[in-house]
């Protein structure tokens, strides 16, 4: 009978993505409720050195698939290796992060294993020896409680939602045989933007600008820099060519869940809200006191962003 929790982790350049710590922590919490173990899997090349870290967040065991063919992520190789791991270990629940990689991998694995998968889960509850999950649908207009049939249940957790908890376990390392099988895709190049840019989906704080910025993002950037925040944008801003597509937040952009989302000069269209409504705190700065964004915000300032944001910069400097 399927049992145990397996967590598929993700690393880039030998550093785990933050969502992997979130997935291991959540896996541990659920495993404790189910009275079972957590096995984490690390895939890559030359990654044995980092594998031990996962014990700190609650992995009883860490499986290491270390092979040159896994140095870059490809759907084929990773699905082939992980499908075998899952077939031989028979976990009841598989966790992974709903990162870009997770969004490519989880549905393919679910199809291969003919089992239920849920993307972007925001709540996971242990029930009847497995889990019941909650995930947003219709751009966050509803939350669905979902039961997953089949073994294992594949649960992809939305980045930045589950808390990272230290809960030291053995974390003993076991190297596994890598049978990558036929790999048709070649990775030609990985282009990462300027190193200090904070990824929107992983940021604790986001300062976002809309049409109200008139494309002048200097003040937004300055505030973001001070707060160690990522810079986001509405679709209008991207359509105007003021910011790149990767900065867009919303239904056709990124879905983000920071601790703090500061919307400057954004009206609050439903498609924008779809991308940021699960943020913990939302601040809206808009000179129109009737802008719909205020109905979605925790704190609001009805004033000109070009006056308020620079003043916020000065205030943040005072407390730092």
């Amino acid at each position, binding site marked *: 009978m399927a049992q145990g929790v397996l967590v598929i982790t993700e690393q880039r350049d030998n550093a785990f993505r933050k969502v992997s710590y979130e997935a291991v922590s959540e896996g541990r919490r659920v495993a404790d409720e189910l009275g079972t173990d957590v096995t984490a899997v690390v895939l890559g090349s030359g990654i044995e050195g980092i594998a031990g870290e996962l014990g700190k967040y609650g992995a009883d065991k860490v499986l290491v698939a270390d092979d040159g063919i896994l140095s870059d*992520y490809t*759907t084929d190789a990773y699905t082939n290796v992980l499908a075998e791991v899952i077939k031989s270990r028979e976990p009841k629940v598989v966790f992974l992060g709903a990162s*870009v990689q997770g*969004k*490519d991998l*989880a549905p*393919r694995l679910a*199809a291969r294993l*003919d089992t239920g*998968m849920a993307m972007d889960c925001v709540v996971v509850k242990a029930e009847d020896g497995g889990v019941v999950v909650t*995930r*947003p*649908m*219709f*751009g966050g*207009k*509803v*939350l*669905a*409680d*979902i039961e*997953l*049939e089949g073994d294992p249940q594949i649960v992809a957790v939305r980045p930045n939602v589950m808390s990272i908890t230290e809960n030291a376990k053995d974390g003993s390392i076991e190297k596994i045989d890598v049978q990558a099988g036929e790999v048709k*895709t*070649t*990775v*030609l*190049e*990985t282009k*990462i*933007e300027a190193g200090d840019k904070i990824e929107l*989906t*992983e940021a604790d704080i986001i300062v976002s600008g809309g049409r109200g910025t008139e494309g002048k993002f200097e003040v937004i950037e300055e505030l973001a820099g001070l707060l160690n925040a990522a810079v986001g944008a509405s679709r209008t801003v991207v359509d105007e060519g003021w910011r790149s*597509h*990767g900065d867009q937040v919303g*239904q*056709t*952009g990124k879905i983000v869940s920071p*601790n*703090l989302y500061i919307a400057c000069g954004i009206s609050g269209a*439903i498609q924008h809200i*779809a991308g940021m409504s*699960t943020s*913990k*705190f939302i*601040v809206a700065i808009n000179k129109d006191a009737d802008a719909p964004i*205020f*109905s979605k915000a*925790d*704190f609001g*300032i009805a*004033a000109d962003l070009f*006056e*308020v944001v*620079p*003043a*916020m910069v*000065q205030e*943040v400097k005072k*407390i730092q």
Partner: protein
Amino acid sequence: MDIVVLVKQVPDTEALIQIAGDGVSIKTDNIKWVMNPYDEFAVEEALQIRDANEGTVTILTMGTDKAVETIRTALAMGADQGVLINDPAAEGSDGLAVAKILAAALKDIPYDLIIAGQRGVDDDGYQVGAAVAEYMGIPQASLVIKEEISDGKIKCDCSIEGGTVVTEAPLPVLFTTQRGLNEPRYASLPGIMKAKKKPLDQKTLADIGIDPSTVGLANRKVKIKALNPPPERKAVKMIEGETPEELAAALIKVLHEEAKVV
């Protein structure tokens, strides 16, 4: 180059979504149905590839009678033909079952390339594209913002956190779309007129060799137990002050001391 585009009909993004009496579905009476925005990118890209390489663009949809309208929209944009899998027994299928149905239909449609949306903005499932690729046994590329086809291979720029990764794979391939790929065209009036005469085949599950007892609402692996509205946020607290400096100071104070987020 024969291209199949997987197109889903979804509620308009502006639609008010209300939970139905059964607690597990949404009210559909007053909803305006449109082509999934990510599938618009897929149709547009298919048309551009076809026009540069010759070949055909086929729209493949699983849906009900009302989905005809969405397929006609794609035909009006310029696609050549449509196939609609329309069978009451398929209704309520989850992503895996939809993918099985589409994969079965693809056995009768020649293709070098399949394009799907990254997700439907209805269930936000992120399932069907990758599952179809798995069932067809072909490589996939996700969240593509640029592609280039030559010598029987496709090079894709896929967006990842903080950048892009460029992959290459031999055709046939399935890729999914990301905003940035293109700006979908609108259907022109002559396009709409022409679309009325383009072939649109409707098929049942039996026609494509799918056993109805393996799909549909009763055979979901992803079972919706309940739908709930998202938790309400407390009413907004408007920050008061005479000057920008006062407003900024009061805001940073609550964020620092109350919310403890800065």
